[in-house]
């Protein structure tokens, strides 16, 4: 009888400690957790005239680097500037009209497809529209 009473009280104590720990840990977890940005909620506007033909413009999109490229001969493309290999940030090489990832020599064409090096897949394309001289990404 004594042992079961002790076991019962011990179990209550452990349960209470667990509830208090969880109640304390949850706000701390939420406080520390990175704030999530839903890309669908983010819109970035860039004037078309800021991106000259044959050049690229890097910008921040939903907390991550992105790039607009104005291809020679016309046509715009917008990508995430994060290399699909190990997450380094790609660079635009104007002379070669392609992207180079300086970490491990990955190469992407102006269309975002892999042309050399270790990247396993093309650059992630971002949705955009062009209206009234402004490129709206997102």
């Amino acid at each position, binding site marked *: 009888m004594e042992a079961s009473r002790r076991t019962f009280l011990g179990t209550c104590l452990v349960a209470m400690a667990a509830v208090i720990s969880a109640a304390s840990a949850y*706000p*701390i977890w939420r406080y520390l957790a990175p*704030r999530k940005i839903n890309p669908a909620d983010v819109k970035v506007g860039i004037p078309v005239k800021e991106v000259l033909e044959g050049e690229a413009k890097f910008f921040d999109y939903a907390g991550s680097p992105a790039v607009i490229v104005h291809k020679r001969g016309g046509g715009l493309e917008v990508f995430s500037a994060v290399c699909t290999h190990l997450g380094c940030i790609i660079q635009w090489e104007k002379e070669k009209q392609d992207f180079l990832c300086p970490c491990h020599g990955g190469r992407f064409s102006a269309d975002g497809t892999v042309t050399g090096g270790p990247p396993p897949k093309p650059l992630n394309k971002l949705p955009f529209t062009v209206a009234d001289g402004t490129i709206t990404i997102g």
Partner: protein
Amino acid sequence: MTLINRLIDWIDVRIGIREITRKELTGYLLPRNINSWYSLGSVLLVIFAIQVVSGILLLIYYVPDSGKAFKSVTDIMNVVPFGWLIRLCHAVGSNMMVLALLLHMLSVLFMGSYKSPRELNWMTGFILFVMVLGISLTGYLLPWSQLSFWATTVATNSANAIPVIGPSLVEFLRGGTLVGPPTLGRFFALHVGVIPAGIVILIAAHLFLLKRTGISTPPFGLNEANKPWQGESYRYEDHPGGIPFIPDYALEDLRSIFIYLACFLAVVFFDPSLFFPKEAFIPANAFITPAHIKPEWYFLANYQTLKIFPNEFIGLTVQGVAMTLLAVLPFIDRGRERHPLKRPLFMACSIGGILLWIGLTVWGHYS
């Protein structure tokens, strides 16, 4: 359970953990007439731990730059998930820490636990009290609100009354002639680095002294079997036949801690603006002084004392003398009697002092 027991066995054969538990916890005997006031030390340790954890969490988003501090605190309150809870716990906790510390000191005073051979315990505790006031004062500036800015201006300005070195001391404290960005840098370093390190060292010293001298027997309801210490040689005050710290007194500690947490969380959730006047929500402006700026409640008596004396130096001296007398009390009050009702002079002085402090605080609040 078997796995836990085997793990404990594994540790025990290496470092003798069961022996430490027997000696320091289950075999650590306390006086049979020990009362709840003795658990305030444990309550204070919990409060300090909460302050450290919430302070570290605040450091993640707080920016100690005069141009960004106020916005960073506003963002913590309004944007960061549960930031309001962490910040309120820290701000309310600092006030509660001063209150609990005052109660702890009063219990030690009335039960005569500061008396020989516990002079060092009292003095380390007193320095801890001063450091807690210091950490509260320095932390008050960090939100960089009108309240922080002008309360710090008033608080640091009082050192001007010290003859000869006063003005230089004020300039040194502020890092300039007026409170400004250099003050924030200094106070931030003191608040998050220097003073907490000092508090940790002093808590360690305070607990070490407590362990070496042994817990004092409350002066109520039990005749002291031990002969009083005569100062001839070191003696640990043990309590044969007393109650074990674990589980008996640990549960009493736990009860006091939960009572404290209930009061603390009641303020956090039901009266969160108790310690925040409206100036706390306005960013600091060095060109606009708000009317009737007041320090925190625990500095109101000091504030009012400075106001009632015609000369600030006299006000400061009176406070300095009072604090010094309190610090060296065990060397002044050398009688062996510890029961408060058998110490009429002590009772008259201490109750008079408490009423004076309360009176000055209320006067300071409404002045």
